[in-house]
Structure formats: structure tokens, C-alpha cells
């Protein structure tokens, strides 16, 4: 009886609503969420800890695993910077200028979301390998992209780009141009307008987009494995190592790496929320 009222308290309405379907829709939502997301999440976390925390730490601190995490994190960080720089440029052009084909470019930005990662992977590999359209210009100059860490960064920037553009673009569209015009009429240079008005206002969105791109890149698999070369200790990413461990029937090892990856992306998401909140407050104070 006590348990029943506890359950009831848990889903209790805070305010009366005349609309029907509250219990049905909320019940189905929680049930589906539990079955599809929470239960599998619990399964993998308990599996990784089954041998105790010492075994967990041992599994994620072998030289090969540490190297995979180093490669993954460094590449994802670089890729999010690349995506932030070019994403900001594209978002700016789309938000501020009208030019022929603007709608087509705008639609194309989501290509990395829509294109299956395996397709992106083999396509980028063929473009940047020795005989590819781009590789044939780079290879003779000693610039190797395919099967090196540069290839990993490239593939990760590809999947990360839309996150930056789609975060920044609406913010740039919303900034009132009157503010920039006022600054310009008071004698501010283009650079001052950018540094004093545009940069602070769009910074939270840029950070958000870059962090989302980073999180996506750190867990990315399909687009990276073809171009990476997958040399242990050098160009092997964490997601691939999970699959390799699994193929070797090392379930504990695979789960330990997977849980470390989960923890990492949850930390990124959490600090993103905090950072955004603080940045927004700062901008709010200044205006």
C-alpha cells in the first residue's frame, strides 16, 4: 500500500489538467524508455563492474586502450575546432548573405546527418587515397591523409560540421542588425563590431555546436574506420577497439571501454549545460 502511494506520488500531477490520456501516455513513455534505453544501460554498466573496480581500471589502462583513447580524444578535439571554424563561416554566410543557390547550400549542410556513415567512410577514403580526386594532389607533396590520423580528423570534422552550423545559424539570424549599424555609426571598425557584438552573442551557440561535434566525433565509428588505417597504438580509435575486443570474446574488456566512452560523453554533455548557463548569464550582464 505504501509502495503504491509512492508510485502514485512519483507521477502525480502538479496541476490539474482537463485533458485525457495522462496515465496512458506517461506510462507508455516510461515503459518504452526503460526497455530501450535504461535496461541496456544498466546491463552494460553492471557487466563492466562485475570483476570489481580494479579489473575495470586494469581493462581500460592497457597501453593499447590508452593509445586508442589518446588518438580518439586528440582527433575529436581537432575535428571540433575544424568544424567550429568552417561551421561558423558557413553559418555566417547562410545567415547574412543572399546569393544564388543559398537554399541548396543550406540543405546540403545536413548531408553528413543524412549520408550513412559507412558511405561517407568509403567515399572519403577513395577521395583522399593515392589515386583519389584530392589525394592525387596531396600525396606527391608528401601530405598523407588516408590511413593516417589526419584522415581520422577529416572524417570526424565531416560528421561534426552540421552540429556547429545548426547551432550558430539561428543565433546569427536573430541578432538585430540595428545593433551593428549603431556600433558602425559610432565609429566602430568591422573587427570591433565582430569582437564586441557578434562574437559574445554567438559564443554560447558556437561552444554548444563544437561540444556536440566533439561528443559525436569521440563515439564515431562508421565514417572513421575505413580511412583510419586502424593500426593499433597509432590510428586505432576507441569505438573500433570495442568491436575488436568483442570479436575476441573479451566482453569485460569491451564493456569497460564502452563505459569509459559513456562516462566521457555524459561529462561533455553535463559540462556543456553548465558552461552554456554561465556564458548566457555573462552575456546577459553585459547587455
Amino acid at each position, binding site marked *: 500500500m505504501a509502495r503504491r502511494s509512492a508510485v502514485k506520488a512519483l507521477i502525480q500531477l502538479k496541476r490539474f489538467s482537463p485533458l485525457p490520456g495522462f496515465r496512458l501516455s506517461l506510462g507508455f513513455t516510461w515503459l518504452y524508455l526503460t526497455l*530501450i534505453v535504461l535496461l*541496456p544501460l544498466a546491463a552494460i554498466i553492471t557487466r563492466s563492474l562485475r570483476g570489481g573496480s580494479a579489473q575495470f581500471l586494469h581493462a581500460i589502462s592497457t597501453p593499447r586502450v590508452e593509445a586508442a583513447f589518446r588518438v580518439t580524444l586528440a582527433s575529436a578535439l581537432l575535428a571540433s575546432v575544424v568544424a567550429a571554424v568552417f561551421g561558423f563561416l558557413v553559418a555566417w*554566410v547562410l545567415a547574412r548573405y543572399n*546569393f544564388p543557390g543559398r537554399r541548396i547550400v543550406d540543405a546540403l549542410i545536413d548531408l553528413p546527418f543524412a549520408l*550513412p556513415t559507412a558511405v561517407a567512410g568509403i567515399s572519403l577514403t*577513395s*577521395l583522399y587515397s593515392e589515386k583519389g580526386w584530392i589525394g592525387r594532389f596531396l600525396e606527391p607533396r608528401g601530405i598523407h591523409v588516408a590511413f593516417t590520423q589526419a584522415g581520422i580528423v577529416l572524417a570526424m570534422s565531416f560528421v561534426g560540421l552540421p552540429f556547429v552550423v545548426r547551432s550558430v545559424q539561428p543565433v546569427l539570424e536573430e541578432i538585430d542588425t540595428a545593433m551593428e549599424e549603431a556600433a558602425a555609426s559610432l565609429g566602430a571598425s568591422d573587427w570591433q563590431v565582430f569582437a564586441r557584438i557578434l562574437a559574445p552573442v554567438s559564443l554560447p551557440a558556437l561552444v554548444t555546436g563544437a561540444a556536440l561535434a566533439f561528443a559525436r566525433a569521440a563515439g564515431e*565509428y562508421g565514417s572513421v574506420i575505413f580511412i583510419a588505417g586502424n593500426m593499433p597504438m597509432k590510428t586505432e580509435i576507441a569505438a573500433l577497439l570495442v568491436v575488436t575486443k568483442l570479436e575476441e570474446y573479451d566482453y569485460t574488456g569491451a564493456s569497460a571501454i564502452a563505459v569509459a566512452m559513456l562516462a566521457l560523453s555524459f561529462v561533455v*554533455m553535463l559540462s556543456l549545460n553548465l558552461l552554456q548557463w554561465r556564458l548566457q548569464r555573462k552575456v546577459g550582464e553585459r547587455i
Partner: protein
Amino acid sequence: MTRVILVVAALFFVALFLVLPLAAVFAQAFAHGWRIYIDAIRERDVLAALRLTLLVAAIAVPLNVAFGIAASWAITRFDFIGKNLLISLIDIPLAVSPVVAGLMYIELFGLHGWLGPWLSQHNLHIVFAVPGLVLATIFVTFPFVARELIPFMQAQGGDEEEAAVVLGAGGWSIFWRVTLPNIKWALLYGTILAASRSIGEFGAVSVLSGHIRGRTVTLPLEVEMLYNEYNFTAAFAAASLLSLAAVITLIVKKAIEIISGVHTPPSKEDFAE
């Protein structure tokens, strides 16, 4: 002048970074002519993979649509304890690597997993079988419909539905006559995102598939297998079908944005009201 330089720079970047990879898929697929291309996509394994891909999407997408509608109805029309927690939990699949998602289901349903022994006693196969592919696909597209509907229905408010209640309408007739017509574009938008990702998902299904040709290989996995067999023309031919689906997705998405105003920032006229 700055404007011209920036536009040209952005266009050059988009061409190099986005258009070229797309074009390369088709160029490689047709490298040896039409006939070889047609033969490659009419290969039995490719057709089986295509059928399986569509089957998996046909199960996963409607389930996530049902979930998206239920979740957004509960979240936007009622005030209850744990609402913010629920909203955060719905986003979890976006933060999980597809490979990790696949592994979760192995730990749950695999032979060494929680439910594995029970499943094998009853001769039920989830891992390395079609149900596993469906589960993986549901997971990676889990929040897509809900995330489109929640902000949209929040902005719309529940006044019209409350009026329908006052006028004596029942639950289902409110849904079909009031809610659904109001949310149809946002719902379609989310459904298309989910369908597109379902068709193209690679990492999560790769872990759960077992790669049994003709039985558990979806089209993206077939692309990988052909590529790893150095059968590049066939791999790109299969990839061209997926790229075509991606291009159609982008066009339909843009069309919905233009027709309905979903996902376009509010213009000044909207504020004037």
C-alpha cells in the same frame, strides 16, 4: 568586398567538403559503365540487404513515432514530477556511440548477458538476428520524433484540445481531429529524420548483426562487406542507393521547411501580431 570573399570561401569549402564526397560515390559506382552498375545492384545479396533494411526501418520508425507522440503529449500537456528528468533521459541515445549502443544489447540479450540463457532456452534469437537489428535501430533513432514534437507542441499550447474537451470530444477524436492536424508537419519532419537514420545506421547494427549474408546484412553492412572484399564498384553501387536516399531526405526536409515553416526562424511579421 568582404561579403564576396566570405561567400566564395564558404561555397568553396562546401564544394570540397560536402559535394565532392557525394559526387565521388556516384562517379565510382558508374566507373565501369551503366551495365556493370545495374548488374551490381541486381545482385541477390544486395537486393536481400535492401529488403532487410526497409523491413527494419518499417518496424523501428512506427514504434518511435508512437513513442514520440506519447512522450510529447505527456510532457507538453501535463505538469508532473520528474518531467525534467524524463526530458534529459530521452536525449541519452544522442550521447551514446552507436557501437556502445550495440554492445549494450549484447550484454542484455547475448549468450553471456542478463537474459541470454533464458532466451536460448526458449529458442529466441535477438543477437545476430533481425530483432537485434531492429532494437539497435530503435535505439539510435529513439529521440528523433520526440525532439521535433516537444518544442513544437510546447509552443502551440493545449488550448485547442481543452476547448475540444469542453465541447465533449473523447480522447481519440481529440487526437485525430485536433492534435494530429496541428502537429502533422513537425511529425513528418521527425519521422523523416528517423527513417533516414534507420536506413543508414551502421555502427550499432554492425555489432549486433553477425554479418550473415542474405539474413542479417543490411545495406550499409553490405557496402562494408563488398568494400572489404575489394569489390569497390559493387560497394559504391550499393552505396549510391543509400546516397540517393540521403539526397531525397535532404530535398524533402527542405520542402517541409519551406511549405510549413517548421524549423525556420520566426520572421519579424510573426512578432508583430
